[in-house]
């Protein structure tokens, strides 16, 4: 079981790296869907056996992050005709290189961090930290609002992975509540992005700090 958990976590690290290097929005959404789906397996693997709580948590996460969010984002990107991220603030290759540096740091931190509970896998903490950082980085370094929503979901994925360490201690309700919050958040953001696009005919967040009258 230990080995399977490691494999799943390595797959998650790979999706993070791919997200950092992908310019096509459609590919990024697909990657996020894969990540969300794989994430659903984690509670089961972390418990070591299939309990009702793990199944519920995993299934909810897989359905929401692997199915609903990607569908929502795909709909938004089709409605507002955004295909790819053009001119990100940090280019793709620098993103990957920075990501590698942070990943190294995450491994160092994961080795040093002392936990009140024994971690189910030595890779869990580095993967969680790195995924959360990837989400944060996507929010900071990309221009399109849609990519930032995507980054927000990835950030939540990272927190979900970190939560696996305390999977025995954390009540199911808390995790489900967080999922609900994220769902509401993504829903609102999806609609918001749609309206921003209708109003300004672009979703470039860099231009949103100027008043409309000035730009005209």
């Amino acid at each position: 079981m230990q080995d399977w958990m490691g494999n799943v976590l390595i797959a998650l690290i790979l999706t993070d790296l791919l997200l950092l290097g992908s310019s096509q929005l459609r590919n990024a959404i697909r990657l996020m869907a894969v990540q969300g789906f794989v994430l659903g397996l984690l509670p089961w693997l972390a418990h070591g056996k299939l309990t009702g709580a793990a199944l519920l948590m995993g299934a909810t996460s897989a359905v929401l992050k692997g199915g609903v969010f990607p569908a929502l984002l795909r709909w938004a990107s089709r409605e507002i005709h955004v295909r790819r991220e053009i001119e990100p603030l940090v280019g793709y290759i620098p993103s990957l290189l920075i990501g590698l540096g942070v990943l190294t740091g995450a491994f160092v931190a994961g080795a040093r961090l002392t936990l009140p509970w024994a971690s189910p896998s030595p890779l869990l903490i580095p993967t969680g930290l790195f995924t959360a950082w990837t989400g944060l980085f996507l929010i900071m370094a990309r221009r399109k609002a849609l990519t930032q929503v995507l980054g927000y979901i990835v950030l939540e994925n990272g927190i979900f992975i970190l939560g696996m360490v305390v999977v025995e201690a954390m009540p199911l309700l808390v995790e489900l509540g967080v999922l609900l919050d994220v769902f509401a958040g993504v829903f609102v953001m999806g609609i918001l992005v749609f309206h921003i696009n209708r109003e300004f005919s672009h979703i470039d967040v860099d231009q949103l700090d100027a008043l409309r009258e000035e730009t005209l």
Partner: protein
Amino acid sequence: MLQIVLAVALSPLLPVVIQRVKALFAGRQGPPWLQGYFDLWKLLRKGGTYSRTTTWVFRAGPLVNFACLLVALLILPLGGLPAVVSFDGDWILLAYMLALGRFCMVVAALDTGSSFEGMGASREVQFAVFTEPALLLGLAALARETGMMSLSGMYGELALTGEVPFRILLSAGMFILYLAENCRIPVDDPATHLELTMIHEVMVLDHGAVDFGLIQWGGALKLWVVGALWSGLLPLGALRHPLALLLAGLGGLLGLAVLTGVVESVMARLRLLRMPQLLVGAGMMCALSLLLTFR
């Protein structure tokens, strides 16, 4: 010793295997199996023509490249069989041998003073900037995973231990490296006819006769050398008999050539601008496999 003889004798088969697979995909028959030897025989008998602007550097290039690959063969284990010579840190020598060979080819290309060849040389070293760190990272990951410092030790130990995700990551990275080092399709198209889009082929435009024969032969040897680095990652732990190991190594090389042919048939070349992304990706996978050994 057998390995080196085999490598020098059998390597001209590899490019033909790739070409035949491509031909199969296109519904053609492809060249005869021994075409590589026919070409070498033709080229090695020819008398050379040299431009007056070239110096000895131009003639030395292919020779040094070929010699470097022979040295690399000396320290290279094939399919779990130990190499002829083996010492601590020989994997660094291997990386430098590949780099020295490339350097001499680039210098020879620059020596002609042709602008096309200068362009090709520039691209060749531009991509080497990405492939060389990736290769070193990959080999360092191997050294760290197995706790050995020589290539033979590393590959011998890996056949027995070695985790599955580590193997998959490293072999994926190494496969991209193999394609890039050997100028195969997503990076460079060996069959292209337009000088502007060539990388490796444009560097050797002015070479002829024996020099060109050595370049062809060297290219085949390079397929062998980098291919052996890849096929050593296959899980061959169950095999004990040396002959079985040797056959498995050869089979790995052959399978890799077939795989390359398939990749060349189903993929188009990447745009030059996208190339660094692919190569950095290969480096990422090697670096990630190195990181995995630290947990």
